[in-house]
């Protein structure tokens, strides 16, 4: 297994690489084999292997990762959203576990911030439902095809998405951008009405 540590033609693109353990190396080789088009996005550190995909492809990639007998990522450990700032994009991050590979697999799906839509993965893992509701509540990412996409923490008439980076917490310092914000009555950072429209129109279609 030691030969995996030698630089290989495909693995040259891995970027910053620390202490690649043999099992993680086996996983990287498998991934490069199965997902040739994703090769430039594969990255690894000591116990995580990472793949970046386009948001639209999440169901396809995750289904293949789960159903391939050699990959066998049968468990969704985590699904979370990251906001890279008002001028950037969102990312939905899935962490997967497989009993064949002692490394976590992280799948980062890029989502457009102006139009945050993504297919739901509740068809693959039912348990993703609460994660998706949380992402919708906190970030305002809409998961198309979800049966139960509504606010989970905040009350249904709440209008903002608190975990976006343009939602600022109240601060005591007068020159901070959040100075003078009443913590309980927040200004809207996002208008929910377009989602309501989208939801009602899709209801009418079905």
């Amino acid at each position, binding site marked *: 297994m030691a030969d995996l540590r030698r630089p290989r033609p495909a693995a040259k693109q891995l970027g910053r690489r620390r202490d690649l353990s043999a099992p993680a190396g086996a996983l990287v080789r498998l991934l490069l084999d199965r997902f040739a088009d994703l090769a430039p996005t594969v990255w690894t550190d000591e116990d995580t292997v990472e793949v970046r995909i386009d948001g639209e492809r999440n169901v396809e990639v995750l289904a293949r990762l789960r159903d391939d007998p050699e990959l066998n990522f049968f468990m969704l*450990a*985590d699904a979370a959203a990251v906001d890279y700032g008002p001028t950037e994009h969102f990312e939905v991050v899935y962490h997967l576990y497989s009993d064949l590979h002692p490394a976590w697999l992280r799948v980062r799906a890029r989502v457009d911030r102006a139009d945050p839509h993504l297919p739901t993965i509740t068809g693959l*893992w*039912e*348990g993703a439902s609460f994660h998706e509701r949380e992402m919708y509540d906190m970030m305002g990412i809409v998961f198309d095809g979800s049966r*139960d996409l509504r606010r989970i923490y905040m009350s249904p*008439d709440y209008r903002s998405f608190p975990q976006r980076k343009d939602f600022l*917490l109240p601060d005591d310092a007068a020159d901070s951008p959040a100075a003078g914000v009443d913590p309980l009555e927040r200004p809207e950072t996002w208008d929910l009405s377009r989602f309501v429209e989208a*939801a009602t129109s899709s209801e009418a279609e079905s």
Partner: protein
Amino acid sequence: MTSEVRIPDPLHPERTEEARLRAAAGLAPAPSTGGEYAGFESVGLPDRPPQTEREREVYTLDEGEMLVNIGPQHPSTHGVMRLVAKVRGEVVVDIDPVLGYLHRGIEKLCENATYTTVMTYVDPMDYLSSMHNEHAPAIAFEKLYGVKAPRRAEYIRALVVELNRVFSHGLMMGFQALDMGGLTPILYAFINRDEVVDLLASISGQRMLFNFFRVGGVNFDANDEFFSRLGTWRAGVLKTIEMNERILTDNEIFRGRTIGMGVLSGSEAMALGVTGPSLRASGVPFDVRKAHPYSIYSELEFEVITHTGGDVYARYLQRVAEIKQSIHLIDQIVDKMPHGPVQAQVPGIIRPKPGRAYAAVESPRGLYSVYAISDGGPNPYRFRMRDPSFVSLQAMPKLMPGRLIADTMAVMASFDPVMGGVDK
């Protein structure tokens, strides 16, 4: 193999009979009569049109059904949770958990705190296992910052974490009985819990929200007094646990109400994201301590315990077995405890290089993980926590249909959710 007990529908006996006959004749089930949408006001929620398919399904009532609120203030909801139950007579038809009554915005607060103060914010999350809550961020931040905790610190961490697991599982035994109407076990459980938290307070200085872990080590060293107290506690700990076992494990009523109740198969549990003891009680040997050994768990000897029943009773037995396993681990850790420093050299305000780290630990409720992103600043750019009880709650609507209302609490207690973690 436990047989599924279906309680006959008291209001419409012919309905289930008809369904059975249709199924026997190979016909499709009879179309629903088209229930009436009840609206949210009947359960005290703001009245509005249903937003999703699932919401319309839950809040649409067939003949003879009604909606019942359990919570948010209810003695056995383990905090402030609301379950909207659709019932027909005594039988639960559907359940909709309504969360958020304890949402404190901890993730957002952590993103505005320095790496060291994050530890104080994650404490009150899953407040029965604060040590585990701190363990995962500590590992993640150490990965980000590229520092390793000294070996003695790792051993002390493992020690306090296992101590925490003992009292958390012990309390679960008590709450399980309390939610089914037995008051005595909780008294024994709290005796045990008070002993452990006093022990942990003697090393960390706090009784409940310990604030003990630091990036690159722990706050205080364990001194001789701590170890002598630990020895005293170790000598007597099994007394209260065994007392509870004697009350519950062979109790006719307890067995009658829990065996075959809320059966969750391994594949279902996996699809729902249920982890921890509840998953292992369904026969799946997944334990983060073995699957992705962190801290010093690769140096300790233990086996992943599983049970096969998948019901409430199996989940209870699983906890009892894990208490004993934890005590066994504590013995090993104390035996192997090395000498040395307990804190690596780390500046007061740390600024890790940009990067991302994922760390998972096995908390008493399952896989507790942290995903942290650094942008080079003094506070994490993104700090995400995955709480096991939040995900496990999704099993409730799957398990309850066809059961009695009184059993809702028994099933919920068997997942041992803690609302502070569920709502963050």
